[in-house]
């Protein structure tokens, strides 16, 4: 059974002229599975991540669909009903660890309040767990008594990751956890996550614009474009071939050291304005494989050999050619 199941989730901004930032997204995450969510800025990936944890900030609101986490429908629960399950079922690591810590509380106080809220652990047990999670992310234990402004960016982000593990959550959502950090620090944090995977039992939703990073860490990858999932595929499959033209374009725009510059390509145009969505496929104006149908009919997310893709052209081609798709 899946740990998390998102069914037709829609998130809008505003009441009078709602803009759909997330337009009907469905996927599942299984236990101890690492899933990556990739897309460009403004594609709705962070909005989706927040909505799954029921952290949507007004004017954003969930306009439809369900989020079922560990058998409970989070979209049907009130804030009061959700509270006991927060951080235990799902914890989050925000984009910039810099601002995710309260500047007027020590790290210890910020670790403690969540444990006091959710557990009946004794003081020594609380302290013990705080030190444990700090060890997990390889930070000096005396950091516990410091204030956030005394820590470097990388240390803060690790503290935030440590905090996410405090209550042994079933799912952790990481929203661009390393974007603001240096390459080497990013690498250390990613290695740290992989190391933890071997020791702790948790599932991960890793949200990032960096396909390379996501492919490295995830079992399965969701590619998001203009508020929809356009492809869902296993990471090792994506390394061989992306199905959706957008995925292929993203793969081409990954500069790989040692490779030839000619293989490095971009995408023309920009993502559609969510207020004025084109008819048909949202990616059609930027697509190299576009057909007349693409401008008229919006494609569905279809199953193809275990993967899912939202594309008229690719879908047909694969069906015609059989099991060996080779596009691009």
């Amino acid at each position, binding site marked *: 059974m899946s740990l998390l199941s998102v069914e037709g989730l829609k998130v809008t901004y505003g009441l009078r002229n709602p803009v759909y930032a997330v337009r009907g997204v469905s996927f599942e995450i299984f236990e101890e599975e690492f899933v990556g969510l990739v897309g460009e800025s403004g594609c709705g990936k962070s909005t989706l991540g927040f909505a799954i944890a029921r952290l949507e900030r007004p004017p954003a609101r969930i306009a439809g669909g369900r989020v079922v986490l560990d058998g409970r429908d989070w979209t049907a629960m009130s804030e009061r009903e959700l509270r006991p399950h927060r951080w235990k079922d799902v914890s989050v690591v925000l984009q910039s660890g810099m601002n995710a810590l309260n500047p007027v509380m020590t790290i210890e106080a910020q670790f403690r309040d969540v444990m006091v809220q959710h557990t009946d652990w004794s003081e020594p047990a609380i302290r013990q767990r705080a030190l444990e999670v700090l060890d997990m992310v390889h930070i000096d234990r005396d950091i516990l008594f410091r204030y956030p402004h005394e820590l470097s960016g990388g240390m803060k982000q690790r503290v935030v990751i440590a905090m996410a593990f405090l209550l042994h959550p079933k799912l952790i959502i990481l929203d661009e956890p390393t974007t603001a950090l*240096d*390459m080497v*620090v990013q690498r250390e944090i990613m290695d740290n996550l992989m190391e933890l995977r071997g020791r702790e039992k948790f599932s991960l939703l890793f949200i990032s614009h960096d396909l390379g*990073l996501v492919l490295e860490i995830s079992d399965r990858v969701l590619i998001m474009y203009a508020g929809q999932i356009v492809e869902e595929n296993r990471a090792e499959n994506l390394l061989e071939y992306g199905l959706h033209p957008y995925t292929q*374009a*993203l793969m081409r*725009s*990954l500069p790989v050291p*040692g490779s030839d510059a000619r293989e490095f390509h971009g995408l023309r145009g*920009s993502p559609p304005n969510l207020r004025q969505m084109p008819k048909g496929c949202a990616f059609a104006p930027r697509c190299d494989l576009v057909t007349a149908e693409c401008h008229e009919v919006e494609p569905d997310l279809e199953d193809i050999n275990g993967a899912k893709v939202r594309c008229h052209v690719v879908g047909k081609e694969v069906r015609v050619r059989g099991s060996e798709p080779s596009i691009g």
Partner: protein
Amino acid sequence: MGRSLLSVENLTKRYPSRSSSEGEVVAVDRVSFELHRGEVVALIGESGSGKSTIAKILTGVEQLTSGRVLWEDGAVASKAPRLLRQRIQMVFQDPFSSLNPVNTVGYTLMRPVMNYQRCNGAEAERRVKELLDQVQLSPASLYFNKRPFELSGGQRQRVVIARALAAKPQVIVADEPVSMLDVSVRAEILRLLRSVMGQQGVQAMLYITHDLATAEILADRVLVLYKGRIVEHGTAKSILRRPMHPYTRLLLESIPNPRARRGNRVPVSLRGENREGELRLTGCLFAPRCPLAHDRCWREVPPLEARSDEGYVACFNASQSLVQTGAVTARDSGA
């Protein structure tokens, strides 16, 4: 490779430290390099490496503490920054803060044209529209009256590049020009930067980045900076294929590489991170994080020495480091 257009000699920048006991922070420490005609040099390092400080000094935004910056014709850049400002222009990192939200694209681009080319409004407007076409913002008349908030990140960065070109500079300093952009537009912007070389009088470019992968695409030569000092210097190809300094290796290994998936990759040693305000060490600044560090590294500063035809490295263990590039060779074969 032509004569050196701009040479930087022993450039040093010290800031007074905010804490009275610490004295000074050395942001850039005796950095020397040359920019030749027709080449793109990449300056690589993490935050705090001094790469942005070098950019600010070259463009005259900040003053150097010691050393000098010499132009080909003998003009000393640091002596008359106003006069020489036009020769060197900058492309900024953040396309959202480098364009004034209240000014139109037209106004922003007209300023350098009118200030440096001393032409009238109509002539300047014509030239600005040419520039817009050149950076592929066409039709130019459409973008001329736009304000930054009406443009996407990639379009803004094109305007920023056009502004740098508008002054007809000899050198362009591009400070992390694509790191804030979506991956899908990075390639186009880098390609545009590459195409700008040789046009409008642009003769050389300094590309500042933390990303070795894009440096390989754009740059001919690469300088690796660590805490204000050059630790390695060589052609882009040689540095990416055969990095000699352990820090360069660390940077290379840090690039996300989906093809070197878990299990295939040697984890980076967790040896603390780059921070400003650390105690000044007497020896190699990288020693505290270096897996190869030995006594001598802590005592002496390794000089920047030629190690092959193509490169220079400041490391006592460079040859040893070369042997230990297991991860890199694996990557080479994968690519």
